[in-house]
């Protein structure tokens, strides 16, 4: 049976792990490669690096970090943040990423998803969707760290990028990110039910019950969290045990 994945996400800026509250306040929380090794050993199912400065400062992404991580962690690694072109995808894959995540660039030009998927396969193309509630049961895409509204319906956009070839959706609720109030479950469920590919729920995890709800109520295939893991509040093992106790299949060995 396929297991529900728990994915610690390392927000990275200037080569260091940070965790922004609503992407504003940054706290330096260590070396990404060291953190990756620790999560590898702790039984995380995948790792995610997001270069949170790349979009606004127009910087390239972190090839060196990908390479150093892939040398030591034999587990799947997704990298996102500032990925704009098929060449960006290629460079990250060659550096050691297993999956690459588009965000703003896919909103500006959804066809870049198709070009990348045609070249490298859907299995390594993730589209990160940052959405905010604009009315009950209605969510829209926001880009540039949640600062720029686009007027694009999030569910419709998810369908479009999956048709273009996205193999997975990384869905972040901008209403919840950094609040520790739990995932936006109606949003998560609307998108999970709308697309045939796996959806990773992100944004707002504060307790282990939130992880459970993301799967049971949000229908997510994987759950992503940062601060509850980064500051030692809960271990990956505790999170998995809690999910298993709730009847969710997880990889315990």
């Amino acid at each position, binding site marked *: *049976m*396929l*297991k*529900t*994945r728990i994915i610690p996400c390392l927000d990275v800026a200037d080569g260091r792990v940070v965790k922004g509250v609503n992407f504003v306040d940054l706290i330096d929380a260590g070396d990404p490669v060291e953190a990756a090794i620790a999560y*590898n050993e702790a039984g995380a*199912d995948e790792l995610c690096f997001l270069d949170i400065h790349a979009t606004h400062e127009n910087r390239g992404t972190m090839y060196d970090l990908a*390479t150093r991580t*892939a*040398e030591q962690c*034999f*587990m*799947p*690694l997704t990298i996102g943040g500032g990925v704009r072109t098929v060449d960006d995808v290629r460079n990250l*894959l*060659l*550096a*050691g*990423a*297993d999956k690459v995540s588009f965000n703003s660039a896919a909103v500006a030009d959804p066809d870049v998803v198709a070009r990348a998927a045609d070249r*490298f*396969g*859907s*299995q*390594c193309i993730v589209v990160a969707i940052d959405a905010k509630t604009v009315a009950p049961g209605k969510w829209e895409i926001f880009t540039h760290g949640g600062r720029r509204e686009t007027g694009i319906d999030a569910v419709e956009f998810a369908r479009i990028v999956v048709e273009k070839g996205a*193999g*997975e959706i990384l869905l972040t609720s901008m209403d919840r990110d950094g609040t520790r109030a739990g995932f936006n479950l109606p949003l998560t469920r609307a998108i999970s039910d709308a697309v*045939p*590919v*796996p959806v990773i729920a992100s944004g707002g995890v504060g307790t282990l019950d939130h992880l459970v709800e993301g799967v049971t109520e949000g229908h997510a*295939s*994987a759950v992503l969290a940062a601060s509850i893991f980064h500051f030692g509040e809960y271990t990956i093992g505790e999170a998995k045990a809690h999910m298993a106790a709730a009847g969710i299949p997880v*990889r315990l*060995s």
Partner: protein
Amino acid sequence: MLTVLIDYAAGNLHSAEKAFQRMAREVDGGEVLVSDRAEDIARADRIVLPGDGAFPACMSELKGQAGLFEALIEAVEVRGRPFLGICVGMQLMARTGFEYETTEGLGWIDGEVVAIAPGDPSLKVPHMGWNDLVIDSPHPVLEGIATGDHAYFVHSYQMQVADPSQLLAHCDYGGLVTAIVGTDTMVGTQFHPEKSQSAGLRLIANWLKWAP
């Protein structure tokens, strides 16, 4: 001892290279080289065909590089060099692939590559993540790997094996999904051993030590 990972422009070889290098150091398995050159394949003692991407595109890349395909056939079919196919590299071992179009495979495993169609419609495709293996047939590369061990899969097509003796392991995803195939000199894994932590590294080490 030289292990060559064939680079045919199909996906990320860095992590596979690092995993094979690491396990080669542990088991005294010699040198690991990533190459797209026919002469390297000709002198290889062991051959790995990794790969991400679509069956027809990968087959065409493999055949598109000068002498590469011929060198692979010579090494594996004629000289019986131990072979490991990973993900699409495993699927290419089949007789026929049905991804997008009908494509002739290497024909080393009596099987066909077809779209995953889980019996439960709520199951997502691609089949992405950790699934537990069920061992079907003993094989030297499976030493120390047991039913219940997890491996990391990411694929939308899978091989249906016609000859049950070539099915070494499977997993369940709304039906049987082939996980490992094998013959007396060849093994293929649908999952990524280089991404499957301890069980994956173990399989790589076993394969590097395997002397069929």
